Each structure stands twice: as C-alpha cells, then as structure tokens.
C-alpha cells in the first residue's frame, strides 16, 4: 500500500465523508482527513462499550468460561445426583443450588475478575484506556456491569438446571438479589485488591488458590457445621460463608432478609473496596 497506488478519483474532499452519508468511502489520504476535532462520547456510551467489550473478552476465554460456567454447572449436577452423606433432611438439590450459585459468583466476581484485571494491568491495557476519554471510575463501572452480565448468564443456566432437577426455591427474590449484589461487591473489592497490587502471575496463583480454598470451606458443598463448632463460627464470617449461609436461609428455608450474612458481606465490601482503592496501581 503506497500513496501513489491510490486512484485520484477515489479521493474524497475533506469533510465530505461525514456529509454524504457514506456514499463514497473515505480513504484518509485526502487533505484534512486528520483535521483535529476531538470530542468525547457520552459517558453512558463509553461505559456500555467497556462493559460490552469486557463481557465478550471474558466469554471468549476458554479457561474463564470453564471456571465461570462449566464447573458450577457440573458441580450442581454431580453433587445433587450423587448422595455424599453430608446432607440430610430436605432434598439435596434444595441444599446444593444456593451453594453452587454462591460458587458461581465467587468464580466470576473474584477469580475471573482478579486474573483478567491482573493481566490487563501487566499488559498496560488499564494504562492505555486511561488515556482515552473514559474516566477511571467509568472503567470500573464497566467492569462491574460486565461481571453482572456474566452472573446473569450463570444464574440463568444454574436455575434452569436446578429446576429441571426438581429444585423448589423459597423466599423473597429481593433478599436473594441483595445478597448476590453484596457478595459480588465484596468479591470484586477483593479481586481488585489482589490484581492492583500483585504481579499478574502472583495474582493468577493466589486467586486460583483462594478460589479453591473458599470452595472447600465456604459452605458451597460441605455444610459449615461439618467443620466443627469452633471452625464453623470462624468460617461463617468469610464472605463466601456468609453468602452461602444467606442464600440458603432464604432459598432453602424461606427466611426473610438474613441480617447476619448481609451485615458480614457489607463489612467485607466496605473493607475490601477501601483497601483496593488505597493500594490499586494502574500500571
């Protein structure tokens, strides 16, 4: 591609590309093609563009899809179909569905987000986006919207599977949404705390390790009371413990808004976001 190869007749006068509705294609070789005219897009448009891109990038990453969608779905099917001897009383699916929902939120808001953000920081993506008109808070809002979009996908899939397996959810949908929102906020804060301070490889290792540990001890599969009384009283203060406890209180037992877990998640949210805001390095 050289300048001389461009036929003169195809050149469009400066400004014509905007005026003629695209009848003639601009080639950007005409004089004035790069005439300065910088104007930022509307903030809502920038944020939606960021959310949409992040969602597409996440769904394109096979490992992330495995972590966020395939594994929770398989967990739900495997544990509910196979008696583990740990659950008695109400039907297994009524016990496992809230736990796996909590695990799905943990995987997306914490593990996925920490790993993706860690590598974006390492590759200078956060730095580069910082030079566009998108404000930094807008970037963070975009990330959160993208997390919520993926969670909706996860929740829809898990609910369909659970209902097909005979799940009978109880309780107030508003209480469920509040718990999920608080859990998402708390995990996001922790994810950004990791991703904004550690190297990308360290973030990857720590996020995966913490994810697995929390899956094991967070009441996702094994009820907290199986860990013994002392351990249980500690584990229920973990954000994942509080989230699965709260979701089960509502969805399995039909309780009203469980203030204990809500309070614990709120404290984690405030603490994690405050710490992340203080320590986050953009590059």
């Amino acid at each position, binding site marked *: *591609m*050289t*300048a001389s190869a461009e036929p003169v007749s195809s050149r469009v006068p400066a400004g014509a*590309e*905007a005026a003629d509705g695209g009848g003639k*294609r*601009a*080639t*950007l*070789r005409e*004089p*004035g*093609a*790069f*005439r*300065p*005219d*910088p*104007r*930022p*897009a*509307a903030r809502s*448009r*920038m944020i939606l*563009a*960021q959310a949409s*891109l992040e969602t597409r*990038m996440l769904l*394109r*990453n096979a490992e992330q899809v495995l972590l966020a969608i395939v594994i929770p779905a398989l967990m739900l099917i495997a544990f509910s179909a196979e008696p583990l001897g740990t659950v008695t009383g109400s039907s297994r699916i009524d016990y496992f569905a809230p736990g796996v929902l909590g695990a799905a939120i943990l995987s997306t808001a914490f593990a996925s987000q920490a790993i993706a953000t860690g*590598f*974006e920081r390492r*590759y*200078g*993506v956060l*730095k*580069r986006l*910082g*030079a*566009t*008109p*998108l*404000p930094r808070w807008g970037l963070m809002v975009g990330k959160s919207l993208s997390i919520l979009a993926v969670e909706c996908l996860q929740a829809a899939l898990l609910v369909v599977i659970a209902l097909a397996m005979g799940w009978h959810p109880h309780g107030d949908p508003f209480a469920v949404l509040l718990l999920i929102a608080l859990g998402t906020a708390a995990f996001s804060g922790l994810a950004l705390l990791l991703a904004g301070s550690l190297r990308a490889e360290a973030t990857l290792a720590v996020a995966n390790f913490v994810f697995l540990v929390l899956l094991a001890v967070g009441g996702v599969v094994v009820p907290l009371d199986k860990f013994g009384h002392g351990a249980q009283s500690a584990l229920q203060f973990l954000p994942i413990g509080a989230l699965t406890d709260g979701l089960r209180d509502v969805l399995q037992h039909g309780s009203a808004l469980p203030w204990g877990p809500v309070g614990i998640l709120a404290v984690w949210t405030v603490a994690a976001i405050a710490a992340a805001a203080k320590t986050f390095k953009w*590059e």
Partner: protein
Amino acid sequence: MHAARRSSERPYAVEISGLVKRYGHKTAVQGLDLRVETGSLTAVLGPNGAGKTSTIECCEGYRRPDAGTVRVLGLDPITEAAALRPRIGVMLQSGGIYQAIRATEMLRHVASMYADPLDVDALIERLGLDSCGRTPFRRLSGGQQQRLSLALAVVGRPELVFLDEPTAGLDVQARHATWELIEQLRADGVTVVLTTHLLDEAERLADKVAIIDSGRVIAYDSPQRLADGTRSQDSIRFEAPSGMDLTALSTAVAPGCKAVESAPGSYRVEGEVTPDTLAATTAWCAGLGIMPRNLAIEQRSLEDVFLDLTGRELR
C-alpha cells in the same frame, strides 16, 4: 493551513518548565524546559534512560511531576485530566492492548470513546491492518502491533499526539507508511511530539529536535540548524597517491583548515567547507597534475551532532 489558524489560538501546545521527576533515589528528569509550538512536529531524541519517556508521560498525565510545571493545550495534565484526555492521542512505547483482542475490535472500541472518530475501516486500510483479520493481538507481528497502537492514538481526531518510538521494530515499508501518516497528521494541523532513536527519522520529519540527556534538554532547534551549528567540522575527502605534502595542502586551502592522510592515499581536509575551499583543494591537486579521485564533501549529520552532545559511551 489549519496549523496557522490553530496557532493563533495558543502559540504553544506543550509548555514544560523546570520539570523534575524522581523514582526513589533516581532522578529521571532534572529541571527540564521545553516548549512545543502548536502545529509543529517535535522529535525528542536522547540515549536510553535520558528521561524521554518520563517527560512524555508527565505530559500525558501518567506521572505526577515532583517539581516544575507542565501545561498541555493550556491544561494541567493531572488536575485537568478529564478535559485534556479527549484532546490528545497517545501511543505507548509498548503494550496497552488486550492480548486476545482483534485489531479492528480494539480500534472500534477506542473509537467508541469519541463522539466523532475517524472511519475505523478506512484507518485500518490506511495502515495496512486489514490483513490482521481475526488474529488475536498477541499473535500479530511486531509491525502490525505498532501500527495498531498508532491507529489508536489518532482515531479520536486529536489536536496533539504523543508517539513514543512510533517506528521501533518496523520494517522499511511499514516505517515509510508510518512516516507518511505522521507527515499527513502534521499537514492537517495536528501537533506531533514523538520520541525516537532514529536520527534519520528526526531529520526527515521534525520541525524541531529536542536532544535530552541526563534529564535535561541540551539542544533544541531545527535538525538543519543543529547540524549547521557545527559546519566547521565538515570535511572534503579524496583519494590520491600517498605521501603528499599535508602542510602545503593545508596552507593552500585556507587558514584554519587541516589536511590529514587518514589512510595511505586517503586524504581529508577538515574545516568549514565552502566553494572556495573546495576550489582551492582541487586547484592544488591540479597544480601537481594529480586527479583527486572519489572526491566527496562530508557534511556532519544530525547523528554526529547527537554523538558529540551526548557522548559515545554505551549506556
């Protein structure tokens, strides 16, 4: 000229005075002053570690100066970042792009941050990125990655672009395509500040060259005038039978000129080269009945000036 019209609004697009930037105990920039005229193309040259990128990143709002003031388009890059960011284009030295993203997708994304961006397809074509297809960024060639990065810097129709080593790692064709685009930016009234290690790039593109060393601007002028300033160090070279009388030759040419035989049969007359000194040299040879072969005038390039100013040792 758009450049002329814009220059009536504000004479300088970038004004830096007394800039100091430290990282821990290391001082990267120490008291740097630089003013970039609106609509001009300024090349910032300097050895590795001279403070080029630190200076540019203070202008882009990535670094907070430890002392001094920086104004870009009349704005403070830190406290007035929100007003400044939409108006500048930034090409980072490396990175800045999602590893799994496609070229068109990234360009479209950054374009969506502007109300009236350039036509993305046209820009893709202009920079020869249409062959990238669905290839993720990490698998593009170094040249394709660089050109995408340049496209991101201009897609928002900026008034001012900062290009950090825009042609590093490009092959000859891509370098020329990039130069053409940069020349067009300047012709369309965009102020350009670029850093480079390529002296011929600075010589070809720049209105002004700023040579930075140890965190200060040590020379700032047009490439021509920087080289002209040291014309006394030009020389006339020719080949002739060895063993000619150097003292006689020096005297014959002009007072202050010095003739040396750098290798047997290779002569160099050092000093300001004028039509007179050239004529005197050939006349002297003619007087001896000698044909000066491979006669050439060696003019000092920007590269010689650069090496004189910044030293020849490796950093």
